[in-house]
């Protein structure tokens, strides 16, 4: 299926957000995930299934002023 991750069109076969995070080798402890403009808490990543056309934002806190 095709989804949009951080503004880029991506083809993926990962079924849910947790699989997506693992497939991308991202550190869950510092990650904020937005699925179709809704923040998904980490405990719900495995239950949040991805569908064609979904929009995902993968964000993290960084240093700033």
């Amino acid at each position, binding site marked *: 299926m095709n989804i949009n991750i*951080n503004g880029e069109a991506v083809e993926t076969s990962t079924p849910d957000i947790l699989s997506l995070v693992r497939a991308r080798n991202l550190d869950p*402890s*510092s990650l904020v995930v937005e699925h179709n403009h809704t923040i998904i808490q980490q405990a719900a990543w495995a239950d949040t299934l991805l569908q064609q056309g979904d929009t995902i934002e*993968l*964000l993290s806190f*960084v*240093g700033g*002023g």
Partner: protein
Amino acid sequence: MEDQLTLGGRNFSSRLLTGTGKFASHTLIGPMLAASGSQIITVALRRVDPKAPPQDNILSHIPDTVTLLPNTSGARTAREAVRIAHIAREAGCGDFVKIEVITDMQYLLPDNHETLKATEILAKEGCIVLPYVMPDITISHQLYDAGAAAVMPLGSPIGSNLGLEMKPMIQRIIETSRLPVIVDAGTALWSNHQPVCPPLYLRLLFQPLHLLRVQCGYRLSQNPADHE
């Protein structure tokens, strides 16, 4: 008597706000906070770059006793700032937010109009809003009416190290605003290729000094705690 400051109903004994940008290592943040006594620290939210080397979680280096002040940097409109603020709050950063709406990409100057709009929305939602603005007494009054918890006029353009180019305007805000005034950005001043301690420098310039947010003076050192 202890010098207490109240922001958004919370009391603070330090008037120094610190930033987290460009530290050589996140491990320096804890010692910097301990040495400075700062009780409020800014962080930013960014899209993850899958090509960048993995970074440890910056929030894990900030003690629970320190109030997080996520900024909305990257926002160019009030709507974008509100969205970033919502994400930060839902991600567990608390109710404090520094509104930063920048439309001038040459000197990174804030857009006061969009900042005011974002402040109105977020203050109504119960956020403790600290807006970063061009120094202007009218906007400071409007931000008070909009429910801001403080006003954050810039001392000079971000990262310019020009010191307090805006001193007369900031002084006038201090004299007229009903909000705490946090001098932000460009406050570093250099002498003999070393940053002059900004808090001391600003105390000499402003009486009374409300608050100060610094980044450069601490982050430029290999060991920011040395600036105590």
